[in-house]
């Protein structure tokens, strides 16, 4: 058996350990027979057998060297695992959580901007009411004022984008949290140490109930399908 090859010490160590076990068995048997006071000729026979076994195992003297090599390789591997753990921790907390915090910030800023737009529209509608009171009997002005009011009300309705995008952002935030939890469990498996947050969790604006599938797509078609299904299901339910 060679112990000086370039292969991992682990395979050498395993082979040698099996051989060592085979050598220790006759030693153990000899000790047992000495303990029970076996006849001298029996013990002599055991000794001869042991000498033969040892003679077939010339590489046993290499065992300490192989153990040291194996220890060195295990130490190197642990260093690599530690680096991997740190890399994953970095991804978990400095990227996922920062990404989550940025989403939260976008949700917050969008909500604030939407509220400001609503306040502006409310003020504008108030001004339109004042204007309508000034020119109550002017047909052209009244028509224009009504059109302007309708436009602003429609514009107000378009601000529903904020609710839908907030739900979409919350859905992505939930996905990031799920990935973070899974990565944490992987990191913890490396050495059993719990991973603690390196940056703030930044979940503020992305909590609460939401529909991650919220979308602007095909609203008319989906509403028509819902109306049809609602009528059909309702009719069935009322039977």
């Amino acid at each position, binding site marked *: 058996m060679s112990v000086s090859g370039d292969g991992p010490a682990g395979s050498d160590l395993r082979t040698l350990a099996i051989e060592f076990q085979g050598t220790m068995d006759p030693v153990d048997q000899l000790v047992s027979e000495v303990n029970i006071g076996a006849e001298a000729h029996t013990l002599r026979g055991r000794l001869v057998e042991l000498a033969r076994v040892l003679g077939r195992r010339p590489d046993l003297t290499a065992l300490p060297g192989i153990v040291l090599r194996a220890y060195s390789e295990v130490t190197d591997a642990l260093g690599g695992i530690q680096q991997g753990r740190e890399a994953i921790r970095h991804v978990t907390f400095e990227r996922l959580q920062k990404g989550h915090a940025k989403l939260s910030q976008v949700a917050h800023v969008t909500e604030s901007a939407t*509220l400001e737009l*609503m306040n502006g529209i409310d003020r504008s509608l108030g001004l339109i009411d004042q204007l309508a009171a000034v020119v109550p009997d002017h047909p052209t002005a009244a028509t224009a004022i009504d059109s302007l009011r309708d436009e602003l*009300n429609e514009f107000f*309705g*378009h601000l*529903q984008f904020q609710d839908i995008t907030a739900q979409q952002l919350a859905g992505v935030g939930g996905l990031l949290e799920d990935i973070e939890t899974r990565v944490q469990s992987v990191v913890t498996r490396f050495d059993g140490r719990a991973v603690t947050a390196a940056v703030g969790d930044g979940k503020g604006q992305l909590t609460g109930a939401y529909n991650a599938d919220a979308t602007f797509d095909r609203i008319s078609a989906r509403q028509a399908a819902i109306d049809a299904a*609602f009528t059909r299901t309702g009719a069935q*339910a009322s039977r």
Partner: protein
Amino acid sequence: MKCLVVDDSATMRRIVVNALKSIGMTDVVEAGDGSQALQACDPSVELVITDWNMPVMDGLGLVKALRANAATAKTPVLMVTTRSVQEDIIQAVEAGVTGYILKPFTPQILKDKISQITAVA
């Protein structure tokens, strides 16, 4: 007609209230979730407009609770939500939802649906 608007989003409540105002419905009370809505929903409320996804008690839970109470069992409930899969519609009908509108909606759609469900009720 007194209307109860239920949504956890303050912006969404304002949008619904503004849409109601634009179609002449100004008697409106608001609630931030199903649980608050149950407290606000006295017999004078003639229409409930609710979101589905809300904390504490969601819209579906609210409808079930309203239907279980003799005083509100017949009150029309309009669900305004982003949810549109078939299972959701079935659940909504079975819970006792009267009408269903997808977000985003227009004031005209809201008006039409309110006319439809209050006429039936």
